[in-house]
């Protein structure tokens, strides 16, 4: 039986950038990953920057 597609229900926005901070499509091409976690009111509660 085929499972239904799961949708990420987290309040996290993840962005990928190259070394010049230009946006790239996916994690494999990224030099920098930025993660923003929001609460239910739309407040940023955490922000993490990872240099790959």
């Amino acid at each position, binding site marked *: *039986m085929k*499972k*239904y597609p799961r949708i990420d229900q987290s*309040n996290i*926005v993840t962005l990928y950038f190259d070394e010049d901070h230009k946006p790239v499509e996916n994690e494999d091409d990224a030099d920098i990953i930025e993660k923003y976690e*929001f609460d239910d009111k739309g*407040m940023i509660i955490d922000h993490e920057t990872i240099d790959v």
Partner: protein
Amino acid sequence: MDTDDVSEDVDEPSDDKEKKEEKIEQNDQRSVNQKTYHDFAEKYHESFLKQFPKDKRDELGWKEKNFVNRVDRELEESLTDMNHLGKNNKMIDKLMPVMPMGKNTQPENKSGFRADKGTKTTITPASKKLVESNPLVKIQHDGLREAWNALPDEQRDLIGEFQIRAIDNEAGQYTGGTYNHSKKKLTVTLHPRANMQNVFNNLHHEIGHAQYHKLMETSPDKIKKFNEAVSLATVWGNNVTAYAGSYRGAKLKAKQYMKSAIADLDLHIENSKKHPERFQPVPDGYREKSVKTLTRRIENAETIYENETHSALAQLVTGTNTHDINIVKHTKKQPAITNHRGIRKEALEELFNAYKELHE
């Protein structure tokens, strides 16, 4: 009494006179900062040339050599810009809102950083060692302290921990500054092969984030109004800086993800109705819950862009950065996801007004 004096007093309404005085005071304050920054940048470039003499760069690995040459070029360019007070300085000064910077009265702690008891300044032992052993990092450290000490009390009060990090990886990528709102922690990273001006900009940029987060808590209506103004002013490009513009695609990406994820889910729902034996049923309310989550994510992605735009404006108003801005007559009509075409002065003026209103 001289008659000219009388006519001047009569003709100029007191409000206008006050505004003019405030503007002079603000410009004076900015030019003092600019002089300080210029002196540090000059000192830094001299030291950089001593540490990486041009005739000995062939001894470095190719990657490091390219990196050092690039930084050298950037330093020369930024000094030229600074000597002319920045390529856009006159225009930006004209458009800049009159916003007194606030009092700066806090005492210095043992390390020479101005701060109240609620704010601690920290540096890891490894970073401290690098500051003490590398003259370039030392100049950056001292310049950063000057910039921190020039901030108004109310901006320093937003920070619970001001952390200085110093690293020395050869030609490596690193993040210049971060702000973690849940910990109220602002970090600026020093690197011996970085542009001195970036150190100042990173501090002012992160202070901008701290202000934005605080206002989200204390004045959500004002933030909403500011965000709406950003959306209007930045239609078709008009990003304050290329860096701020790099966050613009986040909303579009979130929209595209929602479209494809919900389409996949709908297809599965349809199939599960036709072939319940082959397709797992979707739980009740799962589609509605997902639509709500993904809609919120689109709004959140937009908030990131607005937050970055605020920080780019803070860099201008609080600091000295006029170099990253490209004022243009027209912006090309195209979705500004990756391309930065500059900003029209009318758009910048609208953003300055929104910034001023937000902080009043």
